[in-house]
C-alpha cells in the first residue's frame, strides 16, 4: 500500500510539528483542529472512545500563548491521545471495563500530568483491551479497535492491549499516544500498525495513576510514528515520582540528542532461542535482513544464547494473573464504578460477586481466577514461587549476555503480522497468549524494548523488529533503533478506507 493521505498537519511527525510550531508556521490550535477533524472522520476505527475537544482546544490556546512567549518545551502544542488506562482528572478513565463505568478520577496520573505541564494537548481517551489484558483489542467494553491497515474485506486487529493508541497514531489521528506494556502491549500493536513503540526500563516512568494490571511488570511508554518522536515523547514522560515507590530516582537524559552519531562498534546479539519452531519464513527473513542492516551500519553481530526463553511465557502467565487477581480485588462496587442491582436479602458478599461478574469481561474473569488459584494455599509454591524463580533465571540470562559485552539484542517483535478480528475467537486462550512470545521476556527482566517498523509482509502488512537494551540504556537503545529505522526506510502508510 502506498500513501494516499494528503499532507495535512495531523500527519506531521512530532519533531516536524514542534519545529513548525516554534517557527510560528503553524499554530497549536490549527494542528489540534486538524486532529479533531481526523478523529471525527475515523469513527470506523473505534480508536478514540472518550472525546475531549474542549480540553484539547483550551490546551492548544494555552500552548500557542507559551509558544508566542518563547517558553515552549518540545511537546508544547503537540496533540496526543491517552490510553484509557491512565487516570485523567474529570475525564472518564475506565480501562475499557464495564466495572469502571462512569468513573471520573479526581486526580491526574503523573505521566499525563507531566505531558500536560509540558504543553501537550490531550485529544481524548483511547480504546484498549479491558484492563490491558489481551493481544487483539477484542476484550474492550467499547468494542474492537480496527487496524487502519487493510488488505482485503477483513477487518484486522491493531494488536493489543494498546490497540487504540497504535491505530490512532498509524491513522494520523494524533501525533503520538501513551501506551502501557505488561507483556508486549506497546510493542506488539506498534508492529501490527507500522508504528514505533518503546517500553522503557521498569521504574523509568511513574505508574502512579495508571490503572494497575501486574505491578511488577507494568510500564508506560510512548507510541509514535518515528524513533525520533519516541525519544522526544519519552523524555517528557520519564522522571522520578515520589508517589511511585518503584520509580527510579535517576536523571532523565536528553534522548533526542543521543540519536546523533553512528552505531559503529555496537554489539548486537541474535538469540538462538528466538528461532521458534514453525516461525513463518517471512519473519525469519526480516530478522536476518535487520541484522544485515545493522551490520552494514557498523554494528557487530554476535550469536547469543538466552537459555530460559522458552519458559518466559508460562512464567508470565502465572505472575501476571497472580498480581492482577490482587490488584483487581479493589473493584468491589463500593468506592467507584459499577455496582450490581441487588435482590432483597442480598448481603455484601452477593454484592461483590454479582458486581464483579457483571463488571469484568470473560478474559479478565479468567485471569483473576487463574491468579486466585496459583496464589491459593497449597499451590503457591508449586506455581507462583516456581514462576518467580524462573523469572530470576530469565533475568540472569540477560545479565550474563550484557556482562559479556552485548549492547542490544535483535529479535522479531511478533510471530506474525496482524490477523483478522474474530480469527482467534474459537482458539484456546493459550493460542492468543503466544502473540507475546518475543516480548514478555523483556517485562520479566525489567528491560527497555522497542519495536521498529522494518518492512511489509507478502500480503502488504507491516512487520516490526524488536531491539532490547540494557537497564536504563534507553538512549543507546533509541540510537540503535534510529539506525535500524533509517536502514529499513519504512515509509508506507495505510491507505485511507475509513
Amino acid at each position, binding site marked *: 500500500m502506498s500513501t494516499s493521505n494528503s499532507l495535512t498537519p495531523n500527519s506531521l511527525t512530532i519533531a516536524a510539528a514542534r519545529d513548525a510550531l516554534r517557527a510560528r508556521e503553524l499554530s497549536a490550535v490549527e494542528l489540534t483542529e486538524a486532529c479533531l477533524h481526523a478523529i471525527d472522520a475515523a469513527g470506523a476505527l473505534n480508536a478514540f472512545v472518550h472525546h475531549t475537544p474542549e480540553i484539547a482546544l483550551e490546551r492548544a490556546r494555552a500552548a500557542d500563548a507559551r509558544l508566542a512567549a518563547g517558553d515552549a518545551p518540545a511537546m508544547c502544542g503537540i496533540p496526543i491521545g491517552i490510553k484509557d488506562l491512565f487516570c485523567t482528572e474529570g475525564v472518564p478513565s475506565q480501562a475499557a471495563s464495564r466495572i469502571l463505568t462512569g468513573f471520573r478520577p479526581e486526580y491526574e496520573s503523573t505521566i499525563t500530568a507531566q505531558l500536560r505541564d509540558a504543553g501537550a494537548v490531550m485529544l481524548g481517551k483511547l480504546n484498549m483491551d479491558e484492563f490491558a489484558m489481551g493481544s487483539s483489542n477484542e476484550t474492550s467494553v467499547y468494542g474492537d479497535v480496527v487496524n487502519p491497515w487493510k488488505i482485503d474485506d477483513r477487518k484486522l486487529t491493531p494488536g493489543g492491549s494498546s490497540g487504540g493508541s497504535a491505530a490512532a497514531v498509524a491513522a494520523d489521528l494524533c501525533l503520538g499516544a501513551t501506551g502501557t506494556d505488561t507483556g508486549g502491549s506497546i510493542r506488539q500493536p506498534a508492529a501490527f500498525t507500522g508504528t514505533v513503540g518503546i517500553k522503557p526500563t521498569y521504574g523509568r516512568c511513574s505508574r502512579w495513576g495508571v490503572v494497575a494490571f501486574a505491578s511488577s511488570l507494568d510500564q508506560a511508554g510512548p507510541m509514535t510514528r518515528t524513533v525520533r518522536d519516541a525519544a522526544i515523547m519519552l523524555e517528557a514522560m520519564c522522571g522520578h515520582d*515520589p508517589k511511585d515507590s*518503584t520509580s527510579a530516582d535517576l536523571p532523565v537524559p536528553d534522548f533526542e540528542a543521543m540519536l546523533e552519531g553512528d552505531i559503529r562498534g555496537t554489539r548486537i546479539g541474535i538469540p538462538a532461542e528466538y528461532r521458534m519452531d514453525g516461525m513463518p519464513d517471512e519473519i525469519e527473513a526480516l530478522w536476518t535482513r535487520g541484522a544485515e542492516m545493522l551490520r552494514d551500519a557498523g554494528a557487530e553481530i554476535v550469536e547469543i544464547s538466552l537459555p530460559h526463553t522458552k519458559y518466559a511465557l508460562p512464567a508470565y502467565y502465572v505472575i501476571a494473573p497472580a498480581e492482577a487477581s490482587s490488584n483487581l480485588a479493589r473493584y468491589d462496587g463500593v468506592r467507584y464504578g459499577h455496582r450490581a442491582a441487588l435482590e432483597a436479602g442480598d*448481603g455484601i458478599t452477593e454484592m461483590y460477586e454479582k458486581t464483579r461478574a457483571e463488571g469484568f469481561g470473560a478474559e479478565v*474473569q479468567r485471569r483473576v481466577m487463574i491468579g486466585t488459584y496459583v496464589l491459593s494455599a497449597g499451590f503457591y509454591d508449586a506455581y507462583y514461587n516456581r514462576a*518467580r524463580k524462573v523469572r530470576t*533465571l530469565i533475568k540472569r540470562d540477560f545479565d550474563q549476555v550484557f556482562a559479556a559485552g552485548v549492547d542490544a539484542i535483535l529479535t522479531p517483535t511478533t510471530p506474525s503480522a496482524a490477523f483478522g478480528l474474530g480469527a482467534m475467537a474459537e482458539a484456546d486462550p493459550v493460542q492468543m497468549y503466544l502473540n507475546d512470545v518475543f516480548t514478555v521476556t523483556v517485562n520479566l527482566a525489567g528491560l527497555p524494548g522497542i519495536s521498529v517498523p522494518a518492512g511489509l509482509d507478502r500480503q502488504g502488512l507491516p512487520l516490526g523488529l524488536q531491539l532490547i537494551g540494557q*537497564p536504563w540504556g534507553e538512549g543507546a537503545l533509541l540510537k540503535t533503533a534510529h539506525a535500524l529505522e533509517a536502514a529499513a526506510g519504512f515509509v508506507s502508510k495505510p491507505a485511507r478506507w475509513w
Partner: protein
Amino acid sequence: MSTIDTDTARKVAKLARIAVPEDHLPALAGELSRILTFMEQLNEVDVEGVEPMTSVTPMRLKRRDDAVTDGGMPERVLSNAPDAREGFFAVPKVVE
C-alpha cells in the same frame, strides 16, 4: 497434566468473588485446566537454590517520614461512589 474439576472451579470463583452460574462451571474448569497445563512446562526447569524474584531492579525502596501529607477532602473521595451517604461509603447490611 493438571485438571481442575467443577468443584475446584466453584471454589476458585468463590475465592475470587465472581458469581459464576452453575452451568458455566464445567467449561470454566476446562479452560482453567488447559491454562494450568501450559504453565506446567515450568516443572522442567531446575530451580534448585534459585531465589524467587522480588524486585526486578536492584534498587532500595525510598524511605520517607511517616507523616500525613494529604487529605481533608471527603467529597472528592466519595465523588465516584455508587452509594455514599453522610460522608461514608454505603454498603448492604453486614451485621444483622
